[in-house]
């Protein structure tokens, strides 16, 4: 596990700062790949639709 390789200090009273950093990183990565997957899926299920056209607001 990556934690073996990182030498960081955790004070038992500090609220587990390092753990949060690791968790956030893992979740961030997971979310990135999940998002990617959803985008791929969405691309294939929406291919029949027209791409959305943006209306430019008139001044």
């Amino acid at each position: 596990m990556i934690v073996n390789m990182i030498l960081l200090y955790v004070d038992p009273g500090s609220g587990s700062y390092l753990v949060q950093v690791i968790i956030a990183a893992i979740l961030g990565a997971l979310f990135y790949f999940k998002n990617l997957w959803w985008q791929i899926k969405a691309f294939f299920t929406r291919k029949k639709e027209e791409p959305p056209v943006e209306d430019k607001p008139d001044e």
Partner: protein
Amino acid sequence: MNKIVRHPASFKDPAGFIFESGGKIYRQVNQRYADEFKLLIDSGLYAKLTSQKQLLSHSAVADNFTGDNEWFTTILPEQLEHISYPYEWSFDQLRDAALLTLSILKTAITHGMILKDATAFNIQFHKGRPVFIDTLSFGKYDPEKPWVAYRQFCEQFLFPLYLEHYLKTDMIPLLSAHHTGISASLTARLLPWRSKWNLGVRLHVLLQRNVSERKQEPNPRITFSKTKLMNVILHLESIIKGLKNRYSEQTTWSNYYDETILGPQYLAAKEKLVTEFLTGMEFSTVLDLGANDGHFTRLVASMGKDVVAADSDSKCINGLYAYAKETKSTNILPLVIDLSNPSPAIGFGNNERAAFGSRMKSDVVLALALIHHLVIGKNIPFDLVANYFASFGKILIVEFVPREDEKVKQLLSSREDVFDDYDERGFEKSFLRHYSIRKKQVIPGTFRVLYSLERI
């Protein structure tokens, strides 16, 4: 000048403390918290949380009750009817308290503030809903730092919920012995093998255990951000939302219902009698001991009375809580209490958290379908039971369940009968030491006798 009594548990936070004066509970805010207190109000966070009834509202009081130099202001919070503690809550109550904490945390962050602590003792049940009571728990939010209260949140909320979820048995009472929360390493040791497949368990339990058991050189190069923090918080929230109570799965008996032995007419007859006994009496608070599924809790609640329902069966209490939530009732507080071993006084000096009995005085005490469980089931003599009940309140509505009753026969069938004085005479002899009889009537169709007693 009124006498000030500082709350014995309110000593850890230098930002301020709780004290009692003239029968009301106040909170003193100290100078060191002045900036944050102003920010709490100015940022709109206080208004937002109180309007959503998530934070206990307060009114400002100009007086310096204690005469401290440290004094900044005094606030008078909305007063609570009852104090209960996390180890007395059922699964759903603890879960709702956890979700409330996270919801408040998220709102705080959007207002530039954060929770400095996440102890379950920051939550109380008020008018049927969990509410955050520690107004001084808000600190200025620094996006570069991780959440200081994360570990505490895990130890007091996430881990007990995980344990109940995976072990499928009562684990929340452990919070009484582990009053600062259950550690990651203990949780890891108790959780079954299959839990290790779960990402949430790996991240919040195992990773925390692994990292906190290491002794490394200091090297504070941690960078954090709001997005990263929100990732962690949202993950915690989705985990807890996904944890369901085990009761719908279980078809086990849950002490259910004594009364089914005797048939539905019994219940109706008893209801009628209890209502009759309570009519014409002046009272506003009720303590329903051995409430079981809350049938009679609901009866007195419908009379507009404030009821605390205590039962050792967590399934019953959880069900009653679900009922109270669904019906948006504001006068029922269900708690998991074993009357043969109710919550003790704990903390430093056995003084921080009061024992169950000292928090639960009420006008009327109900002890229906209960006495035989205590006397025969738990070997507690009539004298001690009478004395104990008398300590709670002036009026006692108690149901005496005699030997001829089916349920008592059942209880005696599997054990030695050492209860020579277990009869109406023995019952009255003990109880009349503390009470006088206002009313007494046999419940029609049964051998059971309902008493309305008044403490002398």
